[in-house]
Each structure stands twice: as structure tokens, then as C-alpha cells.
């Protein structure tokens, strides 16, 4: 029998039926879901999918925020040897159409009226879509008459009926599973072109589980059923899928679903997770929040916090030198600071009990990581991508090297192309190919199994890997110098006042930057100085704001070589948005789109 995440859940349901598998907040209470309850739902969904005629290899799409039903649908699909396709809740209708049509999904699980509307609007483009299952009936029941619609309870009822008629059907399907079965399509964010569906097989995911979860590739000691995690990033992303679904199924980590992305801070405080994964944007945002809120505190609190954060900075410096291991001195300083500041601060941030924190999915400024290390949150930068099932490198506890993405996991072959500097990986987690796109597959996957990551990097001190930038993003200035814009951008974004920074300068005499301010922090800053403003754009265009940003840019410039300095900058007139095609679903900037949209701004900086 092939071990899959579904058999793992079934096993837990038998061995620990009442232990907590996950919690969801409902009417103010964290409702617990036990392993037996989890498995029951997965089985019902699987039976229902059989009843709806899902054959091995059929695609089931899920378009929802993180919630238990996401997992039920995902595992139910895998149980009947189907393929789960995740859609970002923020995907606009056009992208929904593309993803549904490209994957050829037969069944769509849509969260609410908003997502159902998107699907209904593009039905003509998705001929293979036969059923739409909605989770929240509000606004749909009794008003929509499309015969393809079906509520979640109806789906479960269908499953219950099928189970009583064919009790062993799902078990039989599960037994027939092979390691080569594709179990999910993870769509790349598509910064440069249309998203591509990364096919991950049972073998890939099992390798990732063995390496990252049960093998303790990230945490030390490996995660267990005593660990808590908060699930809040989109589950269609490989990182969140690993930290939520795979950690949960393989190690029994208790998953707590945040109510929404806006309540993450409050939910973190309540749950106080032990394992916390975040993308750079989240870590930067939390840091900015700390700055705003301590500036608004009473003088005594402000002074104490300022002092202890300065101490934390020193502790962080030492930890950076030692790779994350405390010295007697830092331990003593930290102990004192813990009493006066860090304990309370971490409690407020929801990181009091975090024993492992990770940042990944995009590059992050080392200063941000150092802040968390200083206040005692064990922060680790990790690296991986959908194409290698998120398995590549990680900073291991006690061997952290700031500015690098860590060392390759055991069992992972990683080399750097001598000619281009590109990072290549090879291991059993390498994907089976892009869905319906063998040409794109051939571009990144060598016949001998090496995967082109598209990232340029180098080895630091033999073991750790430092990533310079995405290959496609490397700029070559008119002077012929290669410049990695993301390092400059991240140095800029480490400031709490800046949200976006896009460095431009390909084939140009010097570098310029398009800058988007962080409205929360700059707004608070303006309020304290008595600067009145109306809109985001108005705030950006204030001379005082320009002065503030000028200072930040100058400071960052000092750290870079002359050719890498940002000579001029302009403000983005609006906040970048997924809906408008400026960001991908994962909030990554689409450079080409930005360069085109704000062409006049960029040109203005070169002609003046």
C-alpha cells in the first residue's frame, strides 16, 4: 500500500481519535476538530466525489480561504486519486477562468457567493466544470438556480449515501494509489507569464514530508502533536500547504485556522503557536506595527522599550555571529530583557511560545530577521519552490547564517551552474512537470533530473547558499554592470515606512526606484507631526514624506556600491493590487506590468 497524506490521517483517526487535529474559530470559540471527525469528513467527501464520478487523475479545484473544508476537499480528492487544484481567494474572474480552464477541473469547491459568482461569470470558458460546491449558503441558497450548484451539506449527504451503498469503495481507491500519482497542481504565481500548474506526485510529497517534517528538516526537535500552528497564508501556495496540511497529517501538529488575514494578529495572540511560518511581507508588517505601537505608548513604556530593543539589537548581532546560539553574555542580557520587555512583547505579537519561526517564499532583508532573533523568536530563512516541493535549503536551528537561505537538506543535491550562477537541485521531490506544458517543463528540467530554479546564487563558506536574485530580474545597467535589484529593494523595504520598492535600471545609465509607502506607518508618522493629508496619493506627494523617504534611500545607498545606488525615486500613485494586475496572488510584484503601467514615471526620472 502506498503511504499518502490520506493514509496518514486515517492512521491518526484510529490511533488517536479524540486528539485535536485542528481548531476553527466560530462565534468566538475555537471549536476543536478531532482526528476521527477529520477522517469522517474526508471519507464522506471522498465518497461524494466517487458518487459524482471522479476518476483517477480528475481535477478538483478549491477556491476558498483557509478553513477545515479546504483540507477535507483536498484529502478527499487525494483519497480517490484525484488532483487538487488550489485557487487564490483573491484571484479575479479572468484568472479564475484561466486556472479552471487550464487545469480542466471537473468540480469546484467555492467558499461563498463571491467565489461562486466568479466561477459562474466564466462558465463558458470552462466546459469541463460540472459541479460547483459552495460552503457558505448565504446569498446563494434560494437565489441561484444553476443546476451545477450544490451545497456542502448536500455533498456530504451524497457521500453518506454512497458510503452506505459501497462501503469499501474509498478504501479500495486508496489501496490502488501509486507513488507516481499526481496529487496536486500548484500554480506558480506567474510574475512573468501566465501561471503554470506544477504537478506534484505522491512520491514528491512523501519525500517532502520525510525531509521537512518527520526528518526535522526545519524544526529541531521534529514537530509533534504538541505543536500548534496558525494557518493563514493561502493554502494553494506550496509553503502553506506544507506547514498546514503536511505538518498536520505527518506529525499531528494542531492547525488553528485564522478567521481571516485581517485578524491574524489577534488570532496569533490567542493561539500562541509554537511553529510559525510567514512570508517577508508579514514579518515586515509585524515589525512596522511594533514601531507604530511603541511610538504611541506612554513615555515610560516608550523609553523602556526603546532601551530593550536596542539591547535586542546587540543580542541579534551576537546571534548572527554565532549562528543563533546564545553566549553566556547574551543569555544574561536576554534574561533581563525578558522580564522587562521581550516576554510581554512576544506575548503581544503572539510569538511567546514560538520555538521555530521561518521566513520563505520571497527574499527578506536580514535586518528584519535580526530583529526577531534579538527579541528571542528563533527565526530561520528557508528556501524552496513549488517545482521541488519546497525542498531545497534551510537554516537549521543553531546554524543560522543571516543573509543566506541555509544549507541543503540531507538527500538534496544542489549545485551552482558555473556559467550562469544558477542554482540547480536534484532529489526525489522534483516535480513531474508542468500541467499540459511539456515545453516549459523541458526548459527547467534536465533529462538527468536537475531542476533549474531560476535563482542566481553562491555558496558562502562552503555550506550555506546565498541567493543573489531571480535570474530574470538581474539588471544590466548601461555601464554593463550586473545588479541584483531584490537586495536593494529588500534593504529599502526593511524600513517600516516603505511597503513597495521596485528598482528599475536595465540598459539605463543609473538605477531609479518606484516607491510605495506603507500607509499605516507613514500615516501615523504624519499624524504625529501634524501633517494633514487626504488620500494615499496625497500623503505620498507631501514634501515631508519625500524628505522622509529621501533619508531612508540615502541610508540604504551607503551600504551599496556606487553602481548599485538608487539615484532617483518616484512614488507610486496608488497601492499595488492583485486585482489590477500589478501583483501576483502571492503579492509579488509583476515587474513587467509595473514598468509598463508607470512608464511615464520611470521615464520622468531619466529625462529630468
Amino acid at each position, binding site marked *: 500500500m502506498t503511504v499518502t497524506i490520506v493514509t496518514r490521517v486515517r492512521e491518526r483517526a484510529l490511533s488517536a481519535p479524540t486528539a485535536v487535529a485542528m481548531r*476553527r474559530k466560530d462565534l468566538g470559540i475555537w471549536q476543536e*476538530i*478531532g482526528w*476521527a471527525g477529520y477522517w469522517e469528513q474526508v471519507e464522506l467527501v471522498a465518497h461524494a466525489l466517487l458518487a459524482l464520478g471522479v476518476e483517477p487523475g480528475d481535477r478538483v479545484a478549491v477556491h476558498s480561504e483557509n478553513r477545515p473544508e479546504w483540507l477535507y476537499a483536498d484529502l478527499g480528492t487525494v483519497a480517490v486519486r484525484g488532483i487538487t487544484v488550489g485557487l487564490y481567494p483573491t484571484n479575479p474572474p479572468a484568472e479564475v477562468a484561466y486556472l479552471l480552464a487550464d487545469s480542466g477541473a471537473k468540480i469546484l469547491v467555492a467558499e461563498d457567493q463571491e467565489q461562486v459568482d466568479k466561477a459562474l461569470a466564466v462558465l463558458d470558458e470552462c466546459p469541463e466544470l460540472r459541479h460547483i460546491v459552495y460552503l457558505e449558503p448565504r446569498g446563494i441558497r434560494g437565489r441561484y438556480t444553476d443546476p451545477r450548484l450544490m451545497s456542502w451539506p448536500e455533498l456530504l449527504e451524497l457521500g453518506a449515501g454512497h458510503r452506505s451503498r459501497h462501503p469499501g469503495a474509498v478504501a479500495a481507491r486508496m489501496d490502488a494509489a501509486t507513488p507516481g500519482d499526481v496529487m496536486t497542481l500548484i500554480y506558480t504565481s506567474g510574475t512573468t507569464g501566465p501561471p503554470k500548474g506544477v504537478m506534484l506526485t505522491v512520491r514528491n510529497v512523501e519525500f517532502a514530508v520525510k525531509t521537512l517534517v518527520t526528518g526535522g528538516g526545519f524544526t529541531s526537535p521534529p514537530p509533534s502533536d504538541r505543536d500548534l500552528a496558525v494557518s493563514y497564508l493561502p493554502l494553494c501556495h506550496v509553503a502553506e500547504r506544507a506547514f498546514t496540511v503536511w505538518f498536520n497529517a505527518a506529525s499531528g501538529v494542531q492547525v488553528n485556522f485564522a478567521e481571516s488575514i485581517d485578524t491574524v494578529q489577534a488570532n496569533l495572540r490567542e*493561539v500562541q503557536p509554537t511553529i510559525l511560518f510567514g512570508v517577508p511581507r508579514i514579518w515586515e508588517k509585524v515589525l512596522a506595527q511594533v514601531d507604530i505601537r*511603541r511610538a504611541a505608548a506612554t513615555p515610560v*513604556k516608550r523609553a523602556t522599550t526603546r532601551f530593550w530593543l536596542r539591547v535586542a539589537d546587540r543580542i541579534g548581532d551576537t546571534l548572527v555571529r554565532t549562528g543563533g546560539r546564545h553566549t553566556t553574555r547574551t543569555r544574561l542580557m536576554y534574561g533581563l530583557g525578558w522580564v522587562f520587555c521581550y516576554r510581554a512583547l512576544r506575548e503581544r505579537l503572539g510569538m511567546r511560545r514560538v520555538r521555530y519561526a521561518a521566513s520563505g517564499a520571497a527574499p527578506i532583508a536580514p535586518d528584519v530577521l535580526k530583529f526577531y532573533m534579538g527579541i528571542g523568536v528563533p527565526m530561520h530563512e528557508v528556501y524552496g519552490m513549488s517545482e521541488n516541493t519546497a525542498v531545497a535549503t534551510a537554516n537549521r536551528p543553531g546554524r543560522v547564517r543571516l543573509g543566506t537561505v541555509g544549507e541543503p537538506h540531507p538527500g538534496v543535491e544542489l549545485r551552482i551552474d558555473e556559467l550562469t550562477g544558477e542554482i540547480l537541485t536534484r532529489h526525489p521531490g522534483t516535480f513531474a512537470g508542468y500541467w499540459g506544458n511539456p515545453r516549459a517543463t523541458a526548459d527547467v528540467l534536465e533529462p538527468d533530473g536537475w531542476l533549474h530554479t531560476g535563482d542566481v546564487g553562491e555558496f558562502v563558506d562552503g555550506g550555506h547558499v546565498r541567493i543573489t536574485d531571480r535570474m530574470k530580474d538581474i539588471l544590466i545597467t548601461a555601464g554593463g554592470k550586473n545588479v541584483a535589484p531584490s537586495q536593494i529593494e529588500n534593504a529599502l523595504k526593511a524600513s517600516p515606512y516603505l511597503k513597495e520598492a521596485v528598482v528599475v535600471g536595465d540598459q539605463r545609465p543609473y538605477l531609479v526606484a518606484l516607491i510605495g509607502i506603507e500607509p499605516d506607518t507613514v500615516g501615523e508618522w504624519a499624524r504625529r507631526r501634524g501633517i494633514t493629508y487626504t488620500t494615499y496619493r496625497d500623503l505620498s506627494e507631501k514634501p515631508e514624506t519625500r524628505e522622509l523617504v529621501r533619508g531612508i534611500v540615502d541610508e540604504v545607498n551607503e551600504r551599496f556600491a556606487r553602481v548599485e545606488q538608487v539615484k532617483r525615486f518616484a512614488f507610486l500613485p496608488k497601492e499595488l493590487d492583485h486585482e489590477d494586475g500589478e501583483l501576483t496572488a502571492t503579492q509579488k510584484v509583476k515587474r513587467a506590468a509595473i514598468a509598463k503601467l508607470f512608464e511615464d514615471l520611470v521615464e520622468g526620472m531619466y529625462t529630468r
Partner: protein
Amino acid sequence: MTAPPGVSGGRSRRVRGRPLLYTSYAQDMALLDTRGKRIWTGVLVAAAFAVSVLLADRSLEVLAVAYVLAIGAIGLNIVTGYAGQVSLGHAFFVAIGAYTAAALSGPPGGETLGYGLAEIWIWLPAAGLVAAVAGVLVAPLATRLRGLYLAIVTLGLVFLGEHVFKEWKELTGGPGVGREAAIPQLFGYRLDQDGPLGTKEQVLYLLMLSLLVVFAVAARNLARSRVGRAFAAIRDRDIAAEVIGVPLTRYKVLAFGISSFYAGCAGGLLYCVSGYVEPGSFNLLLSVQFIAMVLIGGVATVSGAIAGALFISLLQPVTRALPALVPVISGDTTQTPNVFQVETVLYGLLIVLFLVFEPRGLFGLWIRARNYWKSWPFSY
């Protein structure tokens, strides 16, 4: 939505070290929801009991009276603080309790009424119930009147009561004479005499403290129940409360009934310590004292009422010592200014100061201090 699977209503596990993670409403509503609260409340109660062997008898007497007043203050807080019905008639209900208890426990065939039922478990509930009946009879007024008008009407009760008790000599012994108060006897043991358990003051102190704990816990439980929420709804906006389905009349009657029950019990116990009750003591000043306890302690909090009662009671020994320190103030009631006048002025002044500067009372001060540290290192 179907019910989430695997959730059973009765199961209630706390997740270790996560005080804000509630997995059931029972946890959310728990009186002592964190380990810190459990420990500190335990320590506080243990310390209060330990005081009985540590302090001198004179101080224990003051504290025992303070605890009884606290029971009365909690009662007033139920009707005025939680349900928002201003009552100046609390002294009236206290008086009813005091005389019911005294009459029931008094020796038969004496100068004043007496039925010889000295067992505390008979006369204490009886005192409460008779007062509660009186409260229920008065309550219909409250359903028609609001705010100041209700205050004036309940004020009338005090004068009515004062008159009746002065004239009804068979029960009260008449003004200036008085009668002996309720006799606390438990299973044949007189608690107001020195015995194997300790001195009279020690025994009474422990009795009053235990009763206070019982009454306080009962009031806290009431406040977090459906009834307590209905009271709060009526206080915050009676029309809105009615719209969401709170029967106003029933809950106002209930509030007066429960409040009067507390007042009656406090009345029965109040004079056990001195052993003597005089009808003139149930005047407006007593009502104002209770109001002061509630306002200074903290409106709509049980711990505030207790703090207020302790504050006012401990203020008395201080003011009584004033004539020795400030010669202008006399200890004699016939001269002006005397300590009693100073006391009255002080109550008024304290009420005004608290209402202006800290409307949430002593409890508000505590909340302020607690929030300062709770929000550390931020301000919110």
C-alpha cells in the same frame, strides 16, 4: 451550516499556556479563567481567613461589620449597578431584615417580640426572604419610574420605614431604647460568645467572612448568567432591552427582589456583633453609606462593592479619631461641627470626587493599573 465534526459541547479542555484560547463558552465565562487569577484569589481568601488569628479583637470586630456591609453593598450593586435602578431605599430593606431576624431569634415572652428561633440557618434566610418580599412589593414602582423619580420614591421608603420602626415599639423597642439583635446560634452553639473555636470576635469574623464569600460568589454567578446579562441590557437601554426580548417588568422585579434579599441578610447579621439594634439607625445616612460604598468601590462589580464597604468601614475609625487630632471637631453630637457631620460631609465629598475623577471607583483604579501592565510594552 452543519455542526463542525468532532465538537462535543460538554468537552472542555484548556490548551496549556494559552489563556486567550477558549475552546468552549464555559471557559470563556469562567469566573477564574486563568491560573494567575485562581492562585491570587486563593491567596487573598486564605489571607483573609488567616487575619482572624493575627489581628486584635477590636480590629476583627470592625472587619466583621465591614464584611456584613459588603454583603449589603453587593445587594445594592445588583439593583443599582447591574440593573441600573437607582435605589435610595436600601436602609429600609436592611431594617426589615434586621427586625425579622431579631424577632425570630429573640427570647419569647420578653419586652419585645420574640419567637426563640435562634438558629442562624432559620433566621438568616427568613430575614432575606421577608426583605425580598418587601422589595418585590416595591418593585412595580420601578417599572413605571426611571432615574431621579425612582430615587425620590425609594427615598420615601426610608422615611416611611423610619416612622414605622420608631412607633412599633413591640418590635423595635422604640427610639432611644432599642432591642437586642439577632442571636447567631449554629447547631446549639452560640457564636457570639467566647468558645472553643476562639473569642467571640474571631468566631463572628469567620462567620461573616464565610457568608461574604458565599454571597459574593453567588452575585458573581448571577452577573454572568442570563439574568445578569438581562440586567445589564436594562441598565444600558431599557427600550433596546425590551426590543431584544428582555421582559422589563419581570427583570426589574427580580432585581429588586434579589437586592432586597441581600439587604435583609445583611440587616440580620449587621447587629450580631454589637448585639443591639436601635430603630434610629435605619435613616437616610445608612442608605447614603451604601451608595457611597457602591460608587467608591465600583459600579457593577462585586469586588468593587467589597472594596467600597471596606473603605467606608475603615474610614470610620479614622474619623472617630479626629477630635483628638483636630480640636475644632467635636466628638459630641450636640455640638457643631461634630465627627458625624464630618463623616457625612466626607461621604458626599468622596462620592463627588470619585464620580468626577474615577467614575469606575476603586475597581476602576485597579483596572487602570492592571491595563497599564497588561498592555506592556504598548499602550493598547
